């Protein structure tokens, strides 16, 4: 009688790798790096490399088209920035502009998004029409508004003084430092609110209708629904909209440049940076300005992400 061989149960070998072979996790990690490497290369080339180069330039006296070679000067460009009143002023102007426009655009954008999210006839048309200001190139829109604000022949003065009689005399909206920032902020709010509304509308559309039904059954008021359901679930969309808009506002160049040129009391950080590098050919100092702008924007992004934690609690 032949011996009966009892088959041994197959034991999974996961925990016992063959000697010398990499584990599955390690192999998967290697594959991941391989698959990521093209994007990492691109990031390295377009983001990290220029950043490092800017840091290096900011420590030198490099100038465009200069016969003298650039010298290494350590942190002296940054030290000079500390005492540069125009730079501090431009930071102040930019931050004020960012606060005014981002909050204005957020409130108005949310209002418009809620409105066009409701069911009504002609909704598609309204959604399309609302995007018109966003579709006009900023430089053209800014020039148009510049003419409208003109102190002698502008339509804004004509409307407020001649037609409505609200103001006793023409106002030089752009020239007067007390109104200049407000009216340029108004142009930005007019132009960019549709963009914020669009982002928030996308967020609104993924909130399930059942939540509102349940809330209504429980007798929640419209305000309670907004505060308890809409806003918390809209948080990811709000974060995206705020980060986008804040970054744009801190980098603002075109609308200010068209309306004010190189005027000092309305100069933004980006205009001061452009002037230093392009008009003055002062690349070293300009690079130092760029680094400070980079830091300011970085701080804002980190602050947003921390304050508005998107991950579910």
């Amino acid at each position: 009688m032949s011996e009966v061989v009892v088959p041994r149960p197959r034991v999974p070998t996961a925990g016992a790798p063959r000697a010398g072979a990499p584990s599955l996790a390690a192999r998967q990690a290697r594959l991941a790096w391989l698959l990521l490497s093209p994007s990492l290369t691109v990031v390295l080339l377009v983001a990290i490399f220029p950043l490092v180069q800017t840091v290096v330039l900011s420590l030198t006296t490099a100038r465009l088209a200069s016969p003298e070679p650039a010298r290494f000067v350590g942190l002296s460009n940054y030290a000079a920035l500390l005492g540069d009143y125009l730079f501090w002023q431009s930071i102040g102007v930019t931050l004020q502009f960012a606060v005014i426009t981002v909050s204005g655009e957020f409130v108005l954008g949310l209002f418009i998004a809620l409105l066009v999210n409701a069911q009504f006839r002609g909704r598609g048309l309204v959604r399309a029409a609302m995007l018109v200001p966003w579709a006009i190139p900023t430089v053209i829109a800014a020039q148009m508004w510049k003419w409208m604000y003109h102190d002698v022949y502008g339509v804004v003065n004509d409307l407020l003084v001649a037609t409505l009689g609200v103001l006793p005399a023409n106002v030089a909206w752009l020239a007067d430092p007390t109104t200049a920032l407000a009216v340029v902020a108004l142009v930005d709010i007019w132009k960019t609110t549709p963009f914020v509304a669009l982002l928030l509308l996308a967020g609104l559309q993924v909130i399930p209708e059942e939540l509102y039904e349940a809330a209504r059954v429980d007798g929640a008021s419209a305000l309670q629904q907004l505060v308890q359901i809409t806003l918390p679930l809209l948080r990811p969309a709000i974060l995206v909209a705020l980060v986008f808009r804040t970054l744009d506002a801190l980098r603002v160049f075109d609308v200010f440049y068209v309306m004010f040129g190189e005027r000092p009391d309305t100069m933004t950080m980006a205009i001061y940076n452009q002037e230093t590098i392009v008009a003055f050919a002062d690349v070293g100092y300009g690079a130092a300005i760029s680094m400070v702008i980079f830091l300011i924007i970085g701080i804002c992004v980190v602050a947003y992400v921390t304050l508005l934690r998107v991950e579910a609690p």
Partner: protein
Amino acid sequence: MPNAAQAQRYQGVQLTYYGDSVGIGAELDQQLGARFTQDTGIAVRVIPRPQSASEAYATYLRFFQARSAAIDVLLIDIIWPGAFAPHLLDLRPFCAGEIDQFYPALIANNTVADRLVALPWFADVGLLYYRVDLLERYGFAAPPATWEELEVQARRIVAGERAANPVFTGYVFQGNAYEGLTCNALEWLASVGGGRILERGRVTIANPAAAAILDQARGWVGLIAPRGVTTYQEDDARNVFQAGNAAFMRNWPYAYALAAGPASRVAGRFGVAPLPAAPGQPRVGTAGGQQLAVCQYSRAPEAAVELVRYLTSAPVQVYRALRGSFLPTRPAVAADPRVLAAEPFLGPLQAVERVTRPARDAGARYNQVSTAFFQGVNQVLNGADAVQLLPRVARRIERALA
């Protein structure tokens, strides 16, 4: 052609000339180039330079950096000799006999480290335009000679005219934060003994006379000048004056032909005078205009110099004054009766001392110096105190030159 004999020695040479690109100047360049070729046998390729001044500046810099021989003769702005000097030929050895026939201030502007790097071709200078009819109506015998007189006349005329015309204003000038404000403010400074921004390498902007006139100018804004004047450039001021909405205007001679033209409401009712000054100080106007230079890397420098001598010669300047009302750079041409008839503003100009911007001293840093200055002045016009601001402007200029 005055220098035909010398020029014929270079027969057969081919020159490239970067010339005017605006208005009738571009057309005259083609004509004069063809005439030069006909008389001398030197071929001239005329290329209009880029229209925007900053783009032309950048184009020239690229040629110079490459030490390119692709350009022989070039048209340059009055504020560029300092920055371009290392790349331009010294013209002094070629035209020593003619140099004293040009305005000395222009020759001084184009002389960098004892090298004459360009010959003045046509000039520009700041002038006061005034309404003859309004001066008469309000009992003023002559245009204002001092800034105080300007204020008095402007206030009285505005008080009278406002009733019929609510947008009527006294004085318009170029108050926007740009190069034009540097020209305007330099005139204010020089007309009251407030210095010339940068003198012999020293920054002299922070002085009491300069602060006083800038604070005085701040008082004009919103009172005798429109509030929006701090955003005005040349054409903004001209449009206000030409529409009959201002009693006085500071502008360049180009505005004369336009204000006297068919589209103007003040044609035949305005005159020009030197800008006001403090008693005992010279009547000044900031010098503008274009120069002709020869590129250091040209393969035919002698022929190129002959083209420059021809274009800047007295007969060509007379021709250009009659055809295009270009302002001559030679006093003898300005005194020519034919030219005087074509350019009536030349009379008042005789009394004007031309002041130049510190472009020669600042060299490649001129942009930075001028920007610091016009930004500071614009801030004063918008309400800042000149006494406090000027030391900061001075520090910015010093840093730019360091």
